[in-house]
């Protein structure tokens, strides 16, 4: 038995490649340790520690730069797209943790485990975004999901939180079963789990004609579809989003979706071109279904959290339109929209967190009556986010949708684009209902005073608002960055 030759060079390069993940995991461990040492009132500092950790991770990712770095013999790669998604996910995590400074205090989530779970889940997302081997993707998926199950059920006292967590867990486990079975079948047909290798093998008919492989890809798609909450795999989303503490809901909506789309994009862009006719039909139907069901069910929602849950399903549908279009334009549109959606989603949730006094029935739409004029800044911010979610210029939401539907029109899916824009028109109705109650409905006298935001919280809100406006007015640089990332993937 020859001793395993320790190729230190490869090991160092591997660690070098997953630097951001290492920083995040390190912070998580630090937080857990610090939790033991700090007295009760010191718990606040845990949040500051995690914020610092994520900031460090962002700096390390930027330090790595967009160059292509292979790690662990091809299991993980830090390329342009990897960087883009890493930054998106870390930005979402940063904003979430900043909001946590306020939220934890009000909702009693001021515990070490809370921040550690968020950080670990973030690291899972980073692995998933940068994994080029199905195994890494699977590991990333699970590392991401399990902390989220716990986070959803964090409010042990609240029955809805536990119910949401249990539903999410059961269905999550169920879908990862499908995901794994997909990988197994692909592995059986292709003999390898390395995505680029599979992509290169895609040319000969033996593989893409092979039913086992196709079934494998199909099941893989099911796993992704569940995670990204495409219809008909979306059933868990409204319950999990409504049950979870609002901060976690915001985090799930923004970051989890980004990570899942990252991996899905990598698989689709690399392997689908060869088996396009079959796949494009599937994606077309999924996109159409998701947009329509998402928008229609959100129409009559009176609970803001549940409404935003259905709206996140609809937005997954819009992003899938970009995926269906495929090619560089499609990929770029998806990247850009995922980034913009993260900011819009976090911003919207941030504001409703402030306005709602308590978890469950605090998010009813009538509680928002009259705050438009009494608290103009809050009203203005929420209106801005809702307008951007509806895709009305000059916000980033509009530019995102412009490019998504543009890619669809470019690859000939004009029908899908028309369906998409009509869905946006329908979405305007429920996005404006909160605006109606804020500004136009007769305001009751005793308007509940929203919670006094911490400085970090208001900074997070302003940052997302600035992002939404800036990406709306000057999207050129972000779009080019997204395009370069997709090109680096396809090279």
């Amino acid at each position, binding site marked *: 038995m020859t001793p395993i030759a320790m190729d230190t060079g490869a090991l160092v390069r591997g660690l070098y490649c997953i630097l951001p993940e290492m920083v995040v995991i390190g912070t998580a461990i630090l937080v857990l340790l610090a939790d033991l040492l700090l007295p009760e009132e010191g718990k606040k500092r845990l949040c500051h520690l995690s914020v610092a950790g994520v900031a460090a991770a962002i700096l390390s990712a930027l330090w790595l730069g967009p160059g292509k770095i292979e790690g662990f013999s091809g299991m993980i790669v830090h390329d342009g797209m990897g960087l883009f998604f890493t930054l998106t996910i870390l930005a979402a995590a940063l904003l979430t943790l900043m909001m946590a400074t306020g939220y934890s205090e009000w909702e009693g989530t001021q515990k070490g485990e809370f921040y550690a779970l968020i950080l670990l889940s973030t690291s899972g997302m980073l692995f998933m975004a940068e994994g080029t081997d199905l195994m890494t993707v699977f590991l990333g998926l699970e590392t991401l999901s399990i902390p989220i199950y716990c986070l959803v059920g964090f409010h042990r006292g609240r029955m809805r939180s536990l119910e949401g967590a249990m539903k999410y867990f059961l269905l999550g486990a169920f879908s990862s079963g499908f995901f794994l079975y997909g990988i197994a079948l692909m592995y059986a047909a292709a003999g390898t789990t390395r995505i680029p290798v599979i992509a290169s093998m895609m040319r000969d008919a033996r593989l893409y004609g092979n*039913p086992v492989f196709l079934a494998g890809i199909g099941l893989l798609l*099911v796993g992704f579809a569940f995670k990204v909450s495409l219809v*008909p795999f979306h059933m868990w989303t409204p319950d999990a989003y409504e049950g979870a503490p609002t901060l976690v809901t915001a985090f799930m909506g923004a970051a989890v979706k980004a990570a899942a789309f990252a991996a899905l994009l990598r698989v689709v862009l690399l392997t689908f071109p060869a088996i396009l006719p079959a796949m494009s039909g599937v994606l077309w139907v999924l996109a159409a279904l998701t947009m329509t*069901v998402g928008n229609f069910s*959100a129409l*009559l929602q009176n609970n803001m959290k549940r409404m935003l849950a259905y709206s996140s399903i609809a937005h997954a549908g819009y992003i899938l339109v970009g995926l269906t279009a495929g090619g560089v334009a499609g990929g770029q549109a998806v990247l850009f929209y995922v980034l913009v959606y993260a900011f819009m989603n976090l911003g919207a949730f941030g504001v409703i967190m402030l306005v709602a006094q308590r978890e469950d029935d605090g998010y009813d739409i009538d509680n928002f009556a009259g705050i438009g004029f009494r608290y103009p800044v809050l009203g203005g911010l929420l209106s801005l986010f809702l307008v951007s979610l509806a895709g009305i210029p000059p916000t980033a939401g509009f530019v995102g949708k412009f490019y998504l539907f543009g890619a669809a029109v470019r690859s000939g899916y004009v029908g899908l684009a028309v369906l998409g824009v009509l869905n946006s028109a329908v979405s305007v109705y429920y996005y404006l209902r909160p605006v109606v109650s804020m500004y136009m409905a007769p305001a009751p006298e005793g308007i509940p005073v929203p919670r006094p935001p911490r400085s970090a919280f208001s900074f997070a809100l302003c940052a997302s608002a600035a992002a939404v406006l800036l990406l709306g007015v000057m999207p050129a640089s972000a779009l080019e960055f997204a395009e370069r990332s997709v090109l680096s993937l396809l090279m």
Partner: protein
Amino acid sequence: MVSGVLDYLWLVPAFPLLGVILNGVLALIAERPFLLKEAGLPPPGGSHGHPSRGNSHATEAPGSHGSGASGPHSAPVYRNVVAFLAPGAVGASFVVALLCVLSLAARPPEGRTFVQILFPWIQSGSFLAPVGFQLDPLSSVMALVVTGVGFLIHVYSVGYMSHERAFARYFVYLNLFMFAMLMLVLANNYLLMFVGWEGVGLCSYLLIGYWYEKQSASDAGKKAFIVNRIGDFGFLLGVFLIFWTFGSVSFTDVFARIPLLRDSGVLTAGMATAITLLLFLGATGKSAQIPLYVWLPDAMEGPTPVSALIHAATMVTAGVYMVARSSALFLLSPDAMSVVAVIGAATAIFSATIGICQTDIKRVLAYSTVSQLGYMFLACGVGAFAAGIFHLMTHAFFKALLFLGSGSVIHALSGEQDMRKMGGVRRYLPVTFVTMFAATLAISGIPGLSGFFSKDEILWQSFSSPHGSPALWFVGALAAGITAFYMFRLVFLTFYGGSRMDPEVEKHVHESPWTMTVPLSILAVLSVAGGWVGIPASLGGDNRFEEWLAPVFRSVAAAGAHGAATGAHPSVSLEFGLMGISVGVALAGIGIAYFLYRLRTSKPAEIARRVPALYDLVYHKYYVDEIYEWAVVRRVVDGSVWLWQMFDALFIDGIVNGIADGVRSAGDRVRRLQAGIVGGYAFSLLAGAVLLVGYILYRSMVP
């Protein structure tokens, strides 16, 4: 070319405009505070945000016209200024017009056309409509009549309206009317004429509705404007056709291009007919011919000087002027000419019959005007444009006099207009009686007076002209007889016989002040002498009037129209014969009137009883108004209500709201799918997976 004074032609319309502006300023600055103070309302402007003061409000007695106004007032100084300014402006434009006409007359007959372009008004691509004035024999006659009679009526109005509250406002409208009428008459192109055309329509709306607090007055004003607008609709389409056929709208270009276009086949007879009939539709609206005459009788709601000026002398003749001006076009299509003639004759006889039974003095005169206008169109229809214009002039004199006379009677009888409550006024109003009697003689066509020469010329032309026919002559003659009858009926009922006035009105009856009687006498002189300028050759006169208008109409006739009106006279004796018949018919009419209303005063009531249906029909103006109301107005209003409530609200909005509700209910149903049971969720996930994989396998199997 030495134009000299002609260069100041633009002053003619400019003076009344200046009058409008000055009087308007006076009205806004001086009259308004005076009226508000008088009515006890808060002073204008300034105070805003004041709690409304509940002070005593003097409900303004309806602006009673005539002498019964609310008590004597020390006439504020601004009234005197207005009283001088308004007539002054019209007088000045009369003087300038007279000078221009004289300098025009100094020119040889062919050169008597002077065009003055001020500035391009609407210009778009090949279309150009300048603001330009044209003075030629035709428009000079009209200008003089309009400014002359207008000036007299302005002077008359000073007296008549002296007790009115809104004194300045009245004169602003009157001057505005003069400005619009002069624009219409002096315009050198159809579009500018149309500006004057609708301008006078606006002023008649304002003046009829002068006492706007009387519901009937504002209704009449609105009716006048809308019926005129229907006419203008035709005029407008005519202008479009003219432009797209001739490439221009100015008279000189249009008439010059007729021969070229007719030979090249662009201008077919059908096209000419279309243009002329559309223009004629406009004329019927403005000059109250069948079927658009209904507004004129109601227009009597306005002050009497207004009726005299607008609804007798000037505005209603605009239609005749327009037809005369476009005589070259009309001569191109014989059937258009016959349409004009027939409608003219029909209107003449039809409205004459209505005139018989009217009891309101002004209504009688209104229908008489419609009838006389019928004569003018009859003249134009048979190609005797000069005769038509001649009758227009003479009619302006005696009809204005009749209206002003009746105004003076009404003024004296403190507002009474019903002839049944008059009688024997002769003793109180001698001057008014004499002048009105002269006018009555003129209108009845008694030889020697103006009416005789103009009306007889028309009757003669309608008989002898190639376009004319004996039937037309007969209708004309018959109408002349009826005219004589109802005019003398009016005179006998008002001035002769026992006084049927109620006593306290009789106490106040007095002759009108000099400002009213002087214009009456001047007009009386004109009514008598006006005709001498046009004595036909057959009676030894050299018909200088026709000769004066000849260049306008002969040059046109020479342009290939078939056979000019002044063609060969069949025989002088025939002319004398017809003249005799027409005088005879007139005398017969007077006789019957004398018999019924002087000798057997009970006879008319008896006749009415014997044939009640016919009397009732004629008395109610053949129910034409009611038919229009029912057939047109009611249908349109009900239709619009249906359109609004049923079509707009139910149908279109129904669809829109339906879609919205459909989407919402779909949303609700989809939402219900989320039943909350994990088993169901897992099943939908499984089903999705099976379908997805199955679809992929199926698609890859089948290429």
